């Protein structure tokens, strides 16, 4: 939707909106934490000026809403200050989640593409699978996550794979739907031309269907990678908070460590943004090597 040329022009409004959000955040943090700050001062029996009460509400250890700078400091401390192998390092937890996401995303993409190829070439598969694939998405499938994790644990499969399977399940759907659309996107005249060339079914696939489906593939991949990350995070919840961003969220909520929750959330946001960005960059690269015109890439 957003054209690259507009990006620079729209940088200023985005910055303004973000600034407004940050200001509101500080105001909310001041108001929400003030009561807790006063309580803690009263407990310690310290006589203070009102100013000190307000200042403390931005520096509490377990605030209701941590101020942005507290989260930034926590993130800095848990990423740059600790070695990446440390159990307290956010980089370590992010990597645990990211690896499950990537494995699931890869499997989901491969499965989705294969299914789409089958569906496009076999009418029986199309008719019997497509309705179920679409119906499966109206089901809140994340509800299955805890069961899948526990059951696979019981069978002896634990660690990365169960989480990756949830990501796989979530990410394969957009790929199937997008690829079926993409593989069918060439027009009838183009198929007719291939027929006049006496092209075989596999030649039609490689020379017409596959190249035509690439834009659809990348559009689906962007959705799939974001949803794969969600799958990996939710997949970490029922394992009892061992490692990963989901585990950080859960243990943070057990112990009321709000700053930890927020920094895990921000890390997840950075991961999601980064992954979508990388897919977008690959898309541009592929489009360029395939000889797409720049203005068509923007569309």
């Amino acid at each position: 939707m957003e054209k690259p040329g507009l990006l620079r022009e729209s940088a200023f409004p985005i910055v303004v909106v973000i600034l407004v959000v940050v200001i509101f955040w500080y105001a909310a943090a001041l108001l929400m934490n003030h009561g807790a700050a006063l309580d803690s001062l009263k407990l310690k029996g310290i006589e203070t000026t009102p100013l000190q009460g307000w200042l403390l509400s931005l520096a509490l250890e377990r605030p209701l809403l941590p101020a942005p700078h507290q989260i930034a400091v926590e993130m800095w401390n848990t990423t740059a200050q600790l070695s990446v192998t440390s159990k307290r390092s956010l980089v370590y937890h992010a990597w645990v989640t990211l690896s499950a996401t990537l494995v699931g995303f890869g499997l989901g993409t491969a499965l989705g593409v294969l299914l789409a190829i089958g569906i496009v070439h076999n009418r029986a598969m199309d008719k019997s699978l497509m309705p179920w694939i679409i119906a499966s998405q109206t089901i809140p499938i994340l509800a299955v996550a805890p069961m899948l994790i526990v059951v696979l644990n019981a069978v002896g499969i634990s660690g990365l794979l169960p989480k990756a399977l949830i990501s796989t399940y979530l990410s394969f759907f957009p790929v199937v739907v997008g690829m079926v659309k993409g593989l069918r996107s060439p027009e009838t005249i183009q198929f007719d031309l291939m027929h006049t060339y006496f092209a075989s079914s596999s030649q039609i696939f490689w020379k017409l269907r596959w190249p035509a489906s690439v834009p659809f593939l990348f559009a689906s991949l962007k959705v799939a990678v974001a949803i794969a990350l969600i799958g990996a995070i939710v997949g970490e919840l029922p394992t009892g908070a061992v490692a990963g961003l989901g585990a950080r969220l859960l243990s943070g909520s057990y112990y009321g460590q709000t700053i930890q929750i927020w920094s895990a959330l921000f890390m997840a946001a950075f991961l999601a943004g980064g992954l979508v960005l990388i897919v977008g960059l690959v898309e541009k690269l592929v489009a360029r090597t395939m000889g797409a015109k720049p203005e068509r890439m923007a569309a």
Partner: protein
Amino acid sequence: MIATTVVVAVGIWLAAWGLNEYLVRVKTRSRQSARAVNLAVPALFGITLLILWELLTRGLHVPEIILPAPSVILATGLGALPILYADFQQTVLKSVLAGYTIGCSSGLAVALLIDRSPFLKKGLLPLGNFVSALPIVGIAPIAVMWFGFDWPSKAAVIVVMTFFPMLVNTQAGLAAAGHMERDLMRTYAASWWQSMVKLRLPAAWPFIFNALKINSTLAMIGAIVAEFFGAPVYGMGFRISTEMGRMNTAMVWAEIVVAAIVGSIFYGMIALIERRVTFWHPSVRGGQA
């Protein structure tokens, strides 16, 4: 015993597949029988899966903890209807409906509000697009901390999850009306409201319904996942996580079946309304949803 089960299963599978291959090749003249085939093929596939599931779990003696047979799930579900209904009431009728309504309507309202300000559009839309890709379910523990264990915290998560898809889609929909049509409205000296109500909102309906559909699934997911972080003693997500802890897999499956049915009905209702409202749209006229 095991060998026979596997052979029978493979046999059923091949027979059903063969039947489907035959069915899709049948040349039908009347539209009705074509529709019947279109229904029969996926139904046959689903029934085959259920039969295989039942056969394999029983024939191979799969422990019930790992995968209960469909009949066991059905029996468990029917035996626990009051519990399932209480969970449904808590999760769907309270959390999902409240959160979905507030989230979607506020997303729509904000999209309309910022429509007149290009500056806000440029600032908010890229952010909205970005936030739509974020794992928002992660705010569930914070919501539980702020709004307590009961349904308001789940509704809050759903509001945040559904707001941004609605905002982004509505905005795209409002931009969907063509230049010619807008120019026509201008020649009529139509006010902003008139052109909004008579031209741009109708043109935006397909996009808005798209968001409503996406959000129906997101809302169910939000409510269930948020209950993993803490809930009163009922609720679908709560039931799933506690019964799983007790290794009562059949009950978990029963709850998932309920969630699936509710999710499909929710989605189906919106799709039905969509067909009524956007009867003019090519995708509806062509007979495809």
